[in-house]
């Protein structure tokens, strides 16, 4: 098939669909966030902040990973990246708001982070780490993360729009020049970010793979969200003729790779801890091995590795829009359990682990999700859904159709 001139305008019906999705998401978000805030008074600030962290971290990660995948596709090229570029940009745009949502946690740090309490600051190990673990520097690091994430998102989105208008190769290469160094800086900063907000919940414990693990699990969620959204968009122009089974196959393979990488990193952390068997390292696993949290970990092993692994092996599942979207949504749901297991067990006593889960752990992810998705669907309505100005655009659109 030769490249025929097709319109890549967003169909008015699709704008309507997106507006409807935005309204539903905004409504859910508002209701569930209000319920979560009510939990602050009904259940208490401690539980509120824990659940806040679960919900916030999940959705902040989707936005951050959108930015990372956006940079990655500028570096690798490929049709998979071009077809999802606008979706990633819409996801990265949510960071403008979500970096601000760190502030409640920073204000309530004593409720979340034991190291910043009086008792914690008197601890010998914490004192030895005080050069890093102190509240002013915690704020300072937040400023660095926020500025970096927003600046990268702003520039990449702005230049990409410029590329669409001018179709200039200079702009395309500028995007690549920014993305190249952006990727390693992102990894370094977000490693620190995951240390600040998750790892220091257990301030004596440490794991060197933690940052990478966090970022990869974000990427998995973001990739699933993008695939699920694509199949929603594929009902109308321009995606109905732009999206081919080959694109979905490629994105499905990336979901598969990220699932495997997630399991690989989780496992290497466990293997090293298991071999070393050191008291300060095993606490993290003791809390997640037995009882209720042990069941939650088992759900992750089967639900976030074994099952998606077997499903995504199949080519026909990856090429079919309906089935791959269902797998993607399923993974996104199980990922909430993953964040829950990352956060909640830290507050249990290692000598006497009790499973604790509040209804706030359910309302907070839905609340933040509604907010996030409302912004995402709103961003998708502005401008074209396809990066028509990219140098390889027409080649990418004919991906898998013919030579």
């Amino acid at each position, binding site marked *: 098939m030769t490249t025929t001139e097709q319109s890549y305008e967003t169909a008015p019906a699709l704008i309507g669909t997106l507006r409807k999705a935005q309204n539903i998401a905004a409504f859910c978000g508002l209701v569930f966030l209000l319920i979560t805030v009510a939990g602050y008074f009904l259940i208490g600030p401690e539980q509120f902040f824990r659940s806040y962290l679960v919900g916030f971290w999940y959705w902040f990660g989707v936005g951050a990973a959108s930015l990372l995948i956006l940079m990655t596709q500028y570096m690798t090229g490929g049709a998979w990246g071009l077809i999802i570029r606008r979706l990633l940009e819409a996801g990265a745009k949510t960071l403008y708001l979500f970096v601000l949502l760190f502030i409640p946690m920073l204000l309530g740090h004593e409720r979340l982070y034991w190291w910043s309490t009086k008792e914690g600051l008197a601890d010998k190990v914490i004192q030895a780490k005080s050069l890093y673990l102190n509240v002013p520097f915690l704020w300072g690091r937040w400023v660095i993360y926020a500025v970096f994430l927003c600046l990268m998102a702003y520039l990449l989105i702005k230049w990409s729009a410029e590329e669409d208008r001018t179709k200039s190769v200079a702009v395309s290469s500028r995007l690549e020049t920014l993305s190249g160094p952006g990727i390693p800086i992102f990894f370094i900063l977000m490693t620190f970010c995951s240390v600040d907000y998750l790892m220091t919940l257990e301030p004596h414990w440490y794991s060197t793979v933690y940052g990478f693990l966090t970022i990869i699990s974000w990427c998995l969620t973001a990739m699933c969200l993008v695939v699920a959204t694509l199949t929603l968009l594929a009902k109308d122009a321009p995606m109905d003729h732009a999206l081919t089974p080959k694109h979905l196959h490629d994105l499905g393979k990336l979901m598969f790779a990220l699932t495997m990488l997630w399991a690989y990193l989780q*496992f290497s952390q466990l293997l090293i801890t298991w071999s070393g068997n050191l008291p300060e390292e095993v606490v993290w696993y003791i809390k997640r091995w037995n009882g209720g949290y042990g069941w939650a970990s088992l759900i992750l092993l089967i639900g976030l590795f074994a099952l998606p692994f077997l499903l995504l092996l199949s080519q026909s599942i990856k090429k079919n829009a309906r089935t791959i979207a269902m797998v993607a949504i399923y993974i996104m749901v199980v990922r909430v359990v993953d964040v829950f297991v990352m956060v909640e067990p830290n507050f249990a006593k290692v000598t006497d682990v009790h499973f604790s889960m509040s209804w706030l752990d359910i309302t907070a992810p839905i609340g933040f999700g509604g907010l996030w998705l409302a912004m995402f669907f709103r961003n998708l309505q502005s401008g074209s859904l396809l990066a028509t100005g990219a140098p390889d655009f027409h080649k990418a659109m004919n991906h898998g159709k013919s*030579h």
Partner: protein
Amino acid sequence: MDAANPLYGLIAEFETPTELVEAARRTKEAGFRKFDAFSPYPIHEMDDAMDLHDNRVSGFTFIGGLLGCIGGFGLATWCSFVALPLNIGGRPLISVPMFIPITFECTILLGGLTAAISMLVMNGFPSPYHPVFNVERFAGASRSKFFLCIESADPKFDRQATENFLVSLNPEEIAEVAP
């Protein structure tokens, strides 16, 4: 094939992969079943064009991988639970996390070997003789030319009609393939 018509088939030569894919599609639509396409490199669209949907290799690979998985874990378990039970730092004798790397490696090894071997066997390898090499120009198939061969064993094959059909595909050359 009868004695009066000692032919393996007719082969048509094309300049580009696009033409070859199109030719294969039309050959399939014309009702031919015993035909093959030859190209210097894999063409993904060929599966659809030739209606090749035999996925047995992936099934074999899955079974191979599964056997490797069970075998690897079984081997590790047998070694440290039956053959030489050894208490290592108070860990259980079946120390599952330590067994995973070997289980994983065995899965990959057996899965990979099964994939490669079953692919070769099901493609009919080793095959020291193939009639298409009797056509001199066929040497181009490993460099820059694309070929489509309709075999005389096809029930629809007719020396003249098939040649006319191949001409309608607009190839560079048409040649007879001696058996």
